[in-house]
């Protein structure tokens, strides 16, 4: 029986699929996108039995989970344990947003700061909490799907939920942001001497930042085989230092580069 058939059958019995929204180390911005759906939040409630979502709902749930959405990076051992426990009960796991998918902004935490936290040298911290270098959810548990972005877009969230309800796996374009940026009639920021990462970043956002005058900082993740050298070369032509490009590459994707560097060391 397909997921669609199963969910339809269960819905007929008044047994909606259960949804748990877990929040790890993050700003709760992606939860806000979901909560900001306003009317749509009620629609979400029509198709799911939303069992747990700390920012909007009181109550905890320890039963089986049909869909688990996880927002945020894993920042301490306690969160990793929670995640494993959730995974054991969850049928389908979605990593929501750049923190959960890539490590995101929390992933930028410098090693010295993490080390200090581990040594308890912050002068104060919650007893027993064991901080780790913030990392994506997929480094801890198997993830079935992702929703890209910092924050996620409403369109992506709704689309992903529809596809998952139908038993599918949301997929995303492998085109760069530039491909969508030109369609928006934007001038190229690189030509203005601004470090913009659209050329190496997964599209799907309609080049939202460049269209609003901001540079792309790869919040939807780097493309497979991202042409970094090509980007460096174009940047060089326009007097953009490579250090600046590298710094911006390490905003949402710091963890990606840390892992590469660790691998190279070995």
């Amino acid at each position, binding site marked *: 029986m397909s997921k669609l058939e199963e969910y339809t059958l269960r819905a007929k019995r008044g047994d909606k699929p259960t949804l748990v929204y*877990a*929040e790890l*180390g*993050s*700003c*709760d*911005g*992606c*939860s*806000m*996108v979901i*909560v*900001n759906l*306003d*009317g749509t*939040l*009620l629609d979400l*409630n029509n198709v799911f039995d*939303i069992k747990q979502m*700390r*920012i*909007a*709902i*009181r*109550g*905890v749930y320890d039963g089986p989970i049909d869909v688990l959405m996880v927002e945020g990076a894993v920042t*301490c051992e*306690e*969160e990793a344990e*929670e995640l494993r426990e959730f995974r054991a009960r969850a049928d389908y796991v979605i990593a929501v947003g750049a923190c959960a998918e890539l490590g995101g*902004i*929390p992933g*930028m*935490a*410098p090693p*010295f*700061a*993490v080390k*200090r936290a581990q040594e308890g*040298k*912050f*002068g*104060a*911290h*919650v*007893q*027993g*909490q064991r*901080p780790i270098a913030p990392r994506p959810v997929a480094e801890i548990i198997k993830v079935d799907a992702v929703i890209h972005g910092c*924050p996620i877009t409403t369109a992506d969230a709704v689309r992903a939920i529809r596809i998952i309800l139908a038993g599918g796996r949301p997929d995303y374009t492998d085109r760069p942001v530039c491909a969508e940026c030109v369609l928006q009639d934007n001038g190229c920021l690189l030509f*203005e001497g601004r470090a913009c990462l659209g050329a190496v970043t997964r599209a799907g956002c309609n080049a*939202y*930042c460049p*269209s*609003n*005058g*901001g540079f792309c*900082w790869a919040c939807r993740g780097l493309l497979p085989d991202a042409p970094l050298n090509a980007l460096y070369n174009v940047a060089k032509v326009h007097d953009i230092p490579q250090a600046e490009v590298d*710094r911006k590459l390490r*905003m949402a994707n710091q963890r990606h580069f840390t892992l590469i560097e660790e691998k190279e060391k070995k």
Partner: protein
Amino acid sequence: MFNNILKHPLLHAGNHEIGASVGGSGGTNSRAIARKNIPMVEGKMSFEVIQRVDGKFDVNLIVEEPLRHFEAICEGKSWEEVPIIVSRICGVCPFPYALAASKGAERAFGIKVSDQTHRLREIALYGNMFNSHVLHALDLVLPRLLHVNSIIEFAVATPENTALAAKLLGLHTLGNDLARLVGGREVHSITITPGYMTAIPKTEELKAVRDRLANAHETYDVLVKVFADVSAGSNPKLPIREREFIALRGDTKYPFYGSLIGSSKRGTMTPEEFEQYKHEYVVDNSNSKQVHTDESDSYMVGALARLNINSDLICEEAKKDMETLGLSLPNYDPYMNTAAQLVEGRQVLIDAVKAIDELLAIGLKKEKRPRIVPREGYGAGYLEAPRGMIWHEYRYDKNGLVTWANCIIPTGMNTGSMQEDLEHFSEHLLGEAHASDEEIGYDLDLLLAHYDPCNSCAVHVVRLGSKNEPKITLARDAKVAVVSIGNTLAGDDAVGNVVVEEIKHHGVEGNVDYIHGGVSGLTILEDLAAEKYDAIYFIDAVDGLSRVGEVIKLTGEELLEKAQESEPALSLHQGDFTHAFRLARAVKLEVPEKVLFFGIQVGQTEVGMGLTAEIDTHEIAHAIIHEIEDDLYSK
């Protein structure tokens, strides 16, 4: 499991008798009320109130949201990246973060933004403010007051509820639409950056949202009425403690985006004065910094603070809401903070329309990206966020990269106030014999919810070891050692011993041991480490200062730094003592973070008893006692 209230280590620690079922009535004479991972607030926060067998209370507010290191992350990032990064401190109120960081860079680089940019930023902030306030009142507090588990549960209960909820959620959408139109996106603005707005709204779109704001009053009346009805009688009738409020102080209009800072105790201040007036510190078992002022151990920021500070600037329409909601000023009741947010929501509807009208009358012009020339320096950016005042400060190098960042955020400021309120109200609530644990837990949960805490924002304690770190203040029962280094038989070298004797004679307040450390460095450090002191103060004879009897005060790090660069040696016992100190760090002896070193300039150090006449040990001892007590306890 998220909400396992028994899991918290604190509940197992200590000697208190704790009932087996936390939240139910406990052991013989003790009571424990705890809420772990409070739902419907942003981020992870818990509290526990333990009434001990001896009748005393232990009250703990624990900000458990794991550390997020934002201040460390900012270091080495450019002025242009930092607003994007710190915006991710908070997804509920991201605009003030981006604005504070942008303003910080502008102050440091001497940039003045255009009048249009200033106006657009203010309008964007109105959008975020309105959205956040409505969200809090409607989605987070109303369900609590109705004893339902979410706004969804309320909405689906009856068709009337569904219609009502849809109508009220429309207000939320309105705030979002305004924020998105001007800020580029409702969560995490794109347009807010140092120097200008990267994109400006289309005139017709701004007109359309202006009309929606102007027409929202009727729906807003419904929200205020519903909240007033539901919240009537919800506040526990308890004595209210007076407190200090801090908020921006407006001159002609209600200020979210202003320049002067008001305190209910100190009056109006410039930012420079405020910078000296506030002091950050860290507390045990919480991932949030706290802040106190010269006047108070804690203070409150947020909507209630703003109303109190700016009571003469509230519009007539909002004053009507105050009547409906039963809010009169001055008002010190934290349970009224959500009502205060609703009053501000009305103020925003009025002021946002006014601001848009003024801007439209001037006309919108596309702005070119200004050339930003960074320079080395310091800049603080501050404004009002929905949850209260936000203060960011940054130092930049000549390339515009951040070398040091400090983000003081509303919830960090409020945690001290929340803790004090928890203590205050628990004592009264637990004093009422008939109140059940469930009822008390509910009332305290509601107290914290009214503060609208945003715990993800609160958790980035700066690293210690930096000169700019917040001062650590120890509890009065902390274990302290005052240790002399020096040889009693070698003239002025004995000055440490003599001064410690003097200090001992007068006494430093607290649990203090006075120790003669002799001249052998490592042995004494080993002994000290074994005792696990919370703070150690060394008193030593030094050479290299300008006059005999002069005293130098150094932190542990500074001592090591000085020892490396000073030639001839600074401490007369440098060879052994500073070496030992370094060794101690290297072998990870438990040297406390709080170490100070007082060096006294000597005259002669020939063998023989007695000090040079110029050294007034009495005066030095008093000066050092003052320094130690100040370091230990003063905030």
